[in-house]
Structure formats: structure tokens, C-alpha cells
């Protein structure tokens, strides 16, 4: 298995190179650094000096791929491609437009993100699977039919409605918790976390429950379930011991891959609740058109995704001893 993990890590390299090339093409080839400078400086009649200064401040004054002014290896390292894209591989994200170190900011901001995303993920998983098992237990009855319709209704509501509605109802009308804000100070933090976590969980119930229900129903149709029933096992025992266990593989396929991405947080929730996590960091960067941050987040996101894929494979072997990675 160790060899397998090493090999998978090597497979990740071309993918990361691909991601890097895509972002490089998007940010530097489609638009030259001059275009970016002009866009940022706003005015149509900016002088060339102002553009040059903007570029020098941010290190965009170098040539894109090949620097003929220097010699030796510097011909390739003193370029935008090397300083801005290749350096990402060692997680050197450079600095943002306002001069702050992106790597430092990311390290600071991932904890608040995780504080929201992890409870949402765990509680959501538990609730969705419980509801799905309930629907599977009452399959082909009115409870199941209307449960599914309810799921579709919940799915059709915009995420923004959940957030705004939740903030209005619980934060403003009932005045139970602060509408927004965040503070990482021990037990007091909880009062800021309750509402975003609650809303995050409710948002996912519709699609989650429906998804797990399909998985369970697929398993319930199989022969081993009929055998288990024929042995005289109770329906509850069949559901929990047999169906749930065997449904683990399809569940893990969808679930494990998102675990590393929890660090990135949720764009909407964080921005609406004013949580200083990576989600709101990304949104602020997009709105301020800070390309360095967006580039760093794209790279980080794909690294985490690849880790997620690897974890998925490893989790299979834990869930099902018949599966061996080689």
C-alpha cells in the first residue's frame, strides 16, 4: 500500500502542472500584465510609467517565459512563469496586492474555516444518513414518497435564501445569536458558530438525504439482503448491519474526497457571516481582483482535491477488507 501511495503521489505531479499551466494561461497569456495594470489603475489614460511601477511593485515586470537579459539558469528563473507559477509547487504563494504574505494569511485563516466546515460536514453526514435510512425503511409508502418530494423542495431553495432567511429568523427576530461575526476565544466562539453550522446543515439536507436514499435502495434490492431477511433478521438489523455496511463504499466515494477541501471553507456562509476564513478571503480577493490570491487558492484547492482522491482509495481498504491497493 505504501508503494501505491507513493505512485499516486507521482501521478499527482502532471495534474498539478496542468492546473498551473491553466492558471498561467488565464492570468498571463490571455491578458498581459500591462492589461492587468491598466485595469487596476482604472483610468483609461494611465501613463506607461504608472503601469511599469505597478508591475515592478508586484514583480510582474519580468518576461513571461524566457529572460534574455540575464545568463545561465537565470534565463528561466527570472521570469513570471517561474516566480509566479513554479514557486507555487513549494507552497511559496508570494504576496498579495496589499503586500501581505499570502502563505501566512492562509495559515491564519484556515482555522476559522475549519471551525465552521467540519461541524457542518459531520453533523450533516449524520443527519442525512439517518433521514435516508428512515426513508429507506419506509420505502414505497407515502412517507417515502412525500419525503422525497420534500427533499426536492429543499434542494430547489437557493443557498442564499437559507442564509438570509436563517439570519433574519434566528438572528434578528428571535435574537438568539449574533447575526454575524467571529472570535476565536474558547467557549465564546460557539455562539458565533451555531447559526452558520445550523444553516449549513439544513442547506445540505435535501440533496444529501436523496443521494443516500438512492444508494441504500440500490443495496436493499440485492440478493444478500433477501438472504438476511430469509434468515429471519429484523428489518432494523438488516438496515444497520447489512445495508449500511455495504453502502459504505459508494458513500465513501462521495464523502472522503471533500474532507481536505473543508479547509477552504464555504464562500457564501463565510462571507455572509463575516467569518475570517479562507472562503471570505477568496471572495474578497475576487472582488478586489487580486489575482495572486486567486492563483494561490486555485493551486491549493487542486492539491487538496488530489489528497482527497488518495484518501478515498485508502478509505476503501478500511471499509472493505477485500479491496487491496497495489
Amino acid at each position, binding site marked *: 500500500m505504501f508503494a501505491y501511495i507513493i505512485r499516486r503521489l507521482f501521478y499527482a505531479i*502532471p*495534474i498539478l502542472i*496542468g*492546473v498551473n499551466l*491553466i*492558471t498561467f494561461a*488565464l*492570468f498571463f497569456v*490571455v*491578458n498581459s500584465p500591462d*492589461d*492587468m495594470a*491598466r*485595469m487596476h489603475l482604472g483610468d483609461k489614460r494611465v501613463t506607461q510609467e504608472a503601469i511599469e511601477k505597478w508591475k515592478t511593485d508586484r514583480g510582474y515586470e519580468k518576461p513571461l517565459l524566457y529572460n534574455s537579459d540575464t545568463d545561465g539558469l537565470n534565463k528561466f528563473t527570472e521570469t513570471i512563469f517561474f516566480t509566479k507559477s513554479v514557486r507555487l509547487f513549494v507552497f511559496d504563494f508570494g504576496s498579495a496586492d496589499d503586500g501581505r504574505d499570502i502563505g501566512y494569511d492562509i495559515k491564519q485563516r484556515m482555522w476559522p474555516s475549519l471551525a465552521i466546515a467540519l461541524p457542518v460536514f459531520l453533523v450533516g453526514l449524520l443527519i442525512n444518513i439517518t433521514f435516508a435510512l428512515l426513508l429507506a425503511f419506509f*420505502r*414505497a409508502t407515502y412517507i*417515502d414518497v412525500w419525503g422525497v*418530494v420534500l427533499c*426536492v*423542495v429543499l*434542494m*430547489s*431553495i*437557493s*443557498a*442564499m*435564501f437559507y442564509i*438570509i432567511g436563517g*439570519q*433574519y429568523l434566528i438572528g434578528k427576530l428571535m435574537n438568539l445569536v449574533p447575526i454575524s461575526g467571529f472570535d476565536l476565544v474558547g467557549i465564546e466562539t460557539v455562539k458565533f458558530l451555531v447559526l452558520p453550522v445550523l444553516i449549513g446543515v439544513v442547506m445540505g439536507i435535501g440533496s444529501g438525504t436523496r443521494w443516500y436514499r*438512492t444508494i441504500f*435502495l440500490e443495496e*436493499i*434490492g440485492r440478493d444478500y439482503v*433477501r438472504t438476511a*431477511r430469509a434468515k429471519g433478521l429484523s428489518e432494523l438489523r438488516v438496515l444497520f448491519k447489512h445495508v449500511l455496511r455495504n453502502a459504505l463504499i459508494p458513500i465513501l466515494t462521495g464523502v472522503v474526497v471533500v474532507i481536505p*477541501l473543508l479547509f*477552504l471553507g464555504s*464562500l*457564501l456562509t463565510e*462571507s455572509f457571516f463575516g467569518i475570517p476564513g479562507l472562503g471570505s478571503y*477568496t*471572495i474578497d480577493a*475576487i*472582488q478586489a*481582483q487580486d*489575482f495572486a490570491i*486567486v*492563483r494561490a*487558492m*486555485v493551486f491549493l*484547492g*487542486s492539491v487538496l*482535491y*488530489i489528497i482527497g482522491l488518495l484518501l478515498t482509495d485508502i478509505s476503501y481498504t478500511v471499509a472493505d477488507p477485500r479491496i487491496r491497493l497495489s
Partner: protein
Amino acid sequence: MLSQTPKRFWIWPAVIVAGLLLLLWGLPQLLPVCAKYQLTDILIFCLVAGVIFLTAYIRHKPHLLEPWRRVLQSHRAMAAAVVLVVYVVIGLLDSIHFQEPLEGQPESVGHYSVDVPSLFDFMTRSLQEQTEKTYSAPLATHLFVKESVVLEDGTTAQQHRRLEHGGAHLADPQTDKWPDIAYTALQGLVWGLLLWSLLALLVSVWHARTAGLSPGASWRAIWRGRSRYPLNTLLVTAGILLVMLAILFTLSQKYHVFGTDKVGQDVFYLSLKSIRTGLVIGTLTTLVMLPFAILLGIMAGYFRGWIDDLIQYLYTTLNSIPGVLLIAAAILSIQVYIANHPELFDSAMDRADLRLLALCVVLGITSWTNLCRLLRGESLKLRELEYVEAARAFGVHHFTILGRHILPNVLHIVLIVVVLEFSGLVLAEAVLSYVGVGVDPSTISWGNMINGARLELAREPVVWWSLVAAFILMFALVLAANLFADAVRDAFDPRLGRIPRN
């Protein structure tokens, strides 16, 4: 009876499409207007033409027609389809753009106004032009905020000023408003019922003809649920929608039914205008991604080897970037491009339209990977089947095999994915517009409405109406799309829909 496909099944759709084209091109020639179709309009027309051809094709293929029959036999899908038709009609009316000649200058023939309204704008002109100064609540007669007003005796006072259009015909809003609203709504109700009776008549006559019943018997059959399709559901849904729309439209002539927004535009008008944006994003995105996803997906599965590796690499790479970030990165660089090349666009509207199309393309690029992977898996299975092997043994060209044996057998997957993705795309538009990488800020869309209204929630009392209007219209569209998609999936993928009853 197995009906053979007539060789020339395409004649009727071709006639219909040609007729529509003639209408779109010829009618503006007769009227004093100049047709000015946007890029997205043209793509929408292509989509409509494609749907017409496909419908004609499916009609002659019993094995393709049967699942669609099953879809329409479900009550839920029928109700959803009626709702979707209403949205599509409004969206299509909003896609026929033209310019009107400048008024008062008869000598300037060939000079047109800068505005490019759509047919829908033309029909709802009163709504569009009845703007107020700023916020007003639904059905209000006064502005929402107090203003300093100079009274007759020269002093100033803080007052809610009367609206210029909403309820302006009332002498005394205090006493007259609600009776007037009730009366107007009643008028609308009558109109709605009249329209509905016309529809009901048409439907029952059609049913009588196809089922070979007398009109009376057909009417009874429909309401007792004995018609082949759930026409009772169709009529009830259509009735509710028609009555609702008729009441809203009659009321909207005198009042702002959903209030007005910050710059005084009618929210009812804005939320109806947003329908087109939502539909464009939901459908054109699919149109853009479909050729790539299908071609690459079946090629990867069929050829295997290095082609498979390459295509898998391509979609794993794209997939590994979190969707919002890829969209943000792409839209940001398109923004820079648009900002630096103002000479490419005639007007702000062209620019907004191109941005909408760019958003569709970008969304398409991020969402094709899922379909591609599914198609690859299915073609991997299909290529091992005997008939494909036989075709290969006979030396049939690879691409002929792909087109004739693989493609038709994966189309149900394509259909299911396309229908399922639609609602997600409509919802995504709102989120992306909030993040700042959605449609152009000048494009009317639910996302922009929500975004604009969100900041006003902090007010006391709350300005809730644009938010609620946008959410309700979006919810109705997405719910209808989801219910319809479920029915389509159940009909086309028998494996998924069945509930084991043991």
C-alpha cells in the same frame, strides 16, 4: 405495429423552422423596426430549432417515444412541464430584440433609437416606464422613505410622498386603496378564467379528437382521470398559473405589485426579465459543453489506450480545481479582456451579452467533466458487446461505429445529465453574481436582484420585496425543473427509479 421512420421525417420540422425564421426576419421588415438579435438570442433560436427537429425525430421512433410518454403520464412531471412552458414562453419573448425608429424625425429614415428592447419589454412597456423615485412596498401608494416636503404654508415636513404611478389614480388612498385593489384583482380573475376556459376548450377538443370521444365524454374523461395523459393536472396547473398571472398583470397596470427597488424600477418587471438570464445560463451552458463531453467521453471509452489517458488527464485536471475558483479565474481574466478592448463592443448591451455568453462557456467547461466520465464508463462497457465487435470485424470505420452504435446507446445518459444540471446552473447564477463573477452588473438577473437587495436587509423596517420576489421566481423554476428531471430520469433509467418492494 412497428412504424417505420419515414425517410423524410425532417420535412415538417424544416417547414416549421423556416416559417419561424421567416417570421423573425420578415416581420421586422414590415413593421417600422429593425431587428437586432444578440448573440445569445441566435443561440437560443438554434436551440429551439434543434428541439423541433428532435421532437419530429422522436415522434417516429417508438422506442424513443415510449419513455417520453411515460414522463408525461406522471402527474408531477405534467405540472412541472406546464410551469416550465410558461417560463420558456416568457424567456423566448424576451429574446426577440429590436430597435425602434427615433420618434419625431420622419426624415431620419434608418435611424434607430439606442435602446434595444425585446418583444417582452414591448408588451410590458407600462411596467418598465412607470418608475418611481426609490423604494416603495408592494401595492403601496406612498414612497417607502420619508422626504422633506415643502408644505403649502411654506414650512417643510418629513413625509412619505405619493408615488408617481402606483395608485396615482386614487383620490384618497387611505379609503380607496383596498377596494380598488380587490376590484382590479377581480377583473384579473375574470380575464384569467376566460383564458383558462379557452385553453380547457382546446385541450378537451384535442382529447376528443385523439381519443375518438364526443366532446362531453372527453370532458368527463379528463376530469375523472381517464385520459391517456394527466390532462386534469395540466388544466389545474395551467388554471392556477393563468389566474395568478392575469391578476398580477391587471394589478401591475395600476400598482407596483412587488414594489419598486432602489432606483424605483418595478420589481415585478425585473423578476420577469430575469427569467431569460436564468434560462440562458441553464440551457446554453449545456449546449456549449455537450459536443466536447460527448465526443471526448465516448472516444475515451471506445479507443482506450493513450487517447483514454489523455482525456482522463484532461478532465481530472479540470475537475481538480474547485469549480467556483476556476470560474472566478476565467471570468476575472475575461473581465480584464473586456475592460481593455472597449472598441470591440457597440454598446453596453453587447458587452453584457458577451459576458453572459462567456459565463455560459466557462460554466460549461467546469461542468462537462461529470458527463464525460459517465460516458466514458458506459462506452467502455458497450465496446465489448457483440454487435460492436461484429461491426469492427466487418471493418466498419471507427467513427462510424462511434456514431452508429455507441452514441445512440449513451444518449439517455446525456439527456438525464442535461436535465439534472439545468436547475443547478440556475441556482449557480445567483451565487456567482453574489461572488462578483456572475453576469454583468447591468444584466437583469435574480442574482443581481438578490445582491442589490441584500444590503438593504439591515434597514429598519426591512426592504424585503425584491429579495422575496427573486427567490420565489427562482424557486418555482428550479422546483419545476427538478421535478421534471426526476420524471425524466425515472423514465429513461429504469435501474434507478425502481423501489424494491420486498
